């Protein structure tokens, strides 16, 4: 989404406008090999227009209601943008409450992804029959007790989110300059207990990852395979010592050879991040502005970068808590040093972060200042412009608002995690297509490869906010060099496959 308010009409071939379907357009060269593949998913539209004219103070609630997937991340990024907009520095305890709340959310979200969303690919296995590669297959593999443990842990974490944030799903915690509610000594005790349990849970999860994934040569080979490898830049939020931080700090970018390439504050993001538009997609592809858009290609000369757990680990120099730091060390020792370019390593990186989030939760829960009732600094300045950034579970999330002197939004811009990853996801899909497609035949295996590629990033697509479709509907079309359709493959929401050749 562009801050300049540029609008560009994008025409999409009406035949390919299957609403709700992710679409892959594949172009063949003269000899019938894949030349280019384009991947496109339904995206939310009209965001800036929707926000304009509304009071900025409503944004933490409204933006969290837009997304059914990570509302807490939007709530927090928006709250921080309001701090900047009203030029107000929250009292230390308010920052701690926010970070504690956010760490709890990260534990919950990462656990959910590891077991239930990514699990089908890794815990059950990439080559398992399709009917087992789902969350039920995960339960069958790890056992009912583990399933119960995950659900019980999640329930306790949600109780903390409700106790601190007002509501577990759409919080009402953040205000410009602080938070809405103090933490009582009773709630602090409750959080301490759950945090201790969360650390044990995260350690147990790391053991499962060891037992199920790392002990299996096939999985490790898959992580290391070329089809899921891209040498790009990596972005993530770090603290003053360049350690991973989800709530605040500097946005750090490292190059494909792991060297620091940029380190900046959220309000400087427009100097570093730009958005590229392609005629075939609504998605704007983020790239590093000083390098420029060079296309969907790897390497130091291309502005393509990515975010999410693997990128955060690559962009940092370590973890700020002891158990997570040990897991971080092992991650790089096993995968051949920094940076790691294997997309599927995101699943492991997510477990390292799960451990960090749980440890950080306990550190903050034990903080004697946590029950301080002074949780807000009242804003007095005239609002003008503010930028806020956090690390969403899926990667760096930036909210940017410009208002009039009454705090009414004139312009808004959001850079969401999936936009940061959009170019690299497209590259992964193209690589999968090149490996699997020659001529006019589209093997069904491509559906799995494509899904594994983007599930690792844990992307947030509009289509994914819907509960009813059982399958992500996908439409694949192969065109010859003249642009004529030579074959299509469509999978509908009910899993049915339809072909045309």
């Amino acid at each position, binding site marked *: 989404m562009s801050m300049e308010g540029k609008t560009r009409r994008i025409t999409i071939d009406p035949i390919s406008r299957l609403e709700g379907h992710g679409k892959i357009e594949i172009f063949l060269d003269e000899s019938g090999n894949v030349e280019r593949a384009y991947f496109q998913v339904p995206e939310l539209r009209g965001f800036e227009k929707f926000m304009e004219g509304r009071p900025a103070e409503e944004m933490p609630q409204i933006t969290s209601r837009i997304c059914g997937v990570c509302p807490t991340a939007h709530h927090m990024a928006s709250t921080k943008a309001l701090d900047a907009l009203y030029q107000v520095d929250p009292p230390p305890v308010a920052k701690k409450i926010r970070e504690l709340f956010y760490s709890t959310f990260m534990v919950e979200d990462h656990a959910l992804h590891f077991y239930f969303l990514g699990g089908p690919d890794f815990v059950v296995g990439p080559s398992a029959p399709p009917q087992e590669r789902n969350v039920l297959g995960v339960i069958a593999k790890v056992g009912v007790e583990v399933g119960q443990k995950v659900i019980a842990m999640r329930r306790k974490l949600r109780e903390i989110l409700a106790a601190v944030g007002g509501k577990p799903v759409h919080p009402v915690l953040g205000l410009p300059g602080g938070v809405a509610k103090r933490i009582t000594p009773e709630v602090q005790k409750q959080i301490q207990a759950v945090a201790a349990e969360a650390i044990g849970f995260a350690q147990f999860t790391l053991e499962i990852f060891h037992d199920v994934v790392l002990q299996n040569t096939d999985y490790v080979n898959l992580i290391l395979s070329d089809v899921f490898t891209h040498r790009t830049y990596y972005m993530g939020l770090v603290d003053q010592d360049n350690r991973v931080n989800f709530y605040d700090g500097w946005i750090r970018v490292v190059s494909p050879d792991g060297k620091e390439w940029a380190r900046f504050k959220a309000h400087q993001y427009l100097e570093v991040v730009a958005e590229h538009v392609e005629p075939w997609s609504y998605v704007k592809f983020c790239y590093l502005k000083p390098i420029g858009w060079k296309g969907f290609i790897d390497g130091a000369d291309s502005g393509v970068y990515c975010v999410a757990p693997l990128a955060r680990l690559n962009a940092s120099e370590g973890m700020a808590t002891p158990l997570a730091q040990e897991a971080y060390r092992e991650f790089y020792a096993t995968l051949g040093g920094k940076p790691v370019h294997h997309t599927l390593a995101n699943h492991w990186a997510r477990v390292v972060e799960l451990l960090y989030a749980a440890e950080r939760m306990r550190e903050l829960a034990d903080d004697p200042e946590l029950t301080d009732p002074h949780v807000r600094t009242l804003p007095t300045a005239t609002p003008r412009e503010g930028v806020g950034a956090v690390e969403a579970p899926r990667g760096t999330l930036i909210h940017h608002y410009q208002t009039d002197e009454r705090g009414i939004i004139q312009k808004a811009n959001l850079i969401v995690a999936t936009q940061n990853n959009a170019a690299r996801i497209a590259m992964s899909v193209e690589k999968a297509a090149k490996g699997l497609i020659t001529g006019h035949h589209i093997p069904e295996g491509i559906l799995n490869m494509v899904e594994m590629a983007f599930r690792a990033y*844990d992307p947030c697509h509009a289509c994914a906010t*819907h509960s009813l479709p059982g399958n992500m509907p996908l439409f694949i079309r192969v065109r010859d060099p003249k642009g004529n359709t030579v074959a299509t493959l469509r999978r509908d929401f009910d899993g049915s496959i339809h072909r045309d050749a």
Partner: protein
Amino acid sequence: MDRGGHGGVHQEGEALVEVGGSDARIRILCLGNDLLADDAFGPAVGKELRRSIPEDVEVITTQAAGFNLLEEILGATYLLVIDTILTGRNPPGKVLILRAEDVQVVPGNSPHSVGLFETLELGRRVCLPVPEETVILAVEAADCTTLGGSMDPRVRAAIPAVVRLAREIVHGWRKGTVRTAHA
């Protein structure tokens, strides 16, 4: 999230695992986001239903999706879900009646979500109190991705029919409940 006044005794975030009493509990779950064009359908039906549904029926409106619905489905004996669906096969506004039992749990889920059916099955496998019967009333939508967009007139026009169907289904369950109670 907005919980109906009728029997909506749970605070948000409270796990609905412990079900008090032996009475059958009927819950209507209206899914959707009122900011997203046709996705506002579920909440709109929820609003209508609150005016006209018996007091012992819970009406819950939520925009939670996938696995986040687990807490919302637990503890009900009968569950009616109101939602939009994008199959691309029907004209917008077409109402589909689906039974969880009839829908095959399919693998390779959307990149980000565990679907409602998988969530139900997951709950069952790990021995949580999932509904004995789940019916979904889904209306074919035209657009669920435009923020601030208004509902397609054909989708909006389906509200009265879905409200009527919901009442009939609930009525059937209540009759069944009474019979069971006397048996």
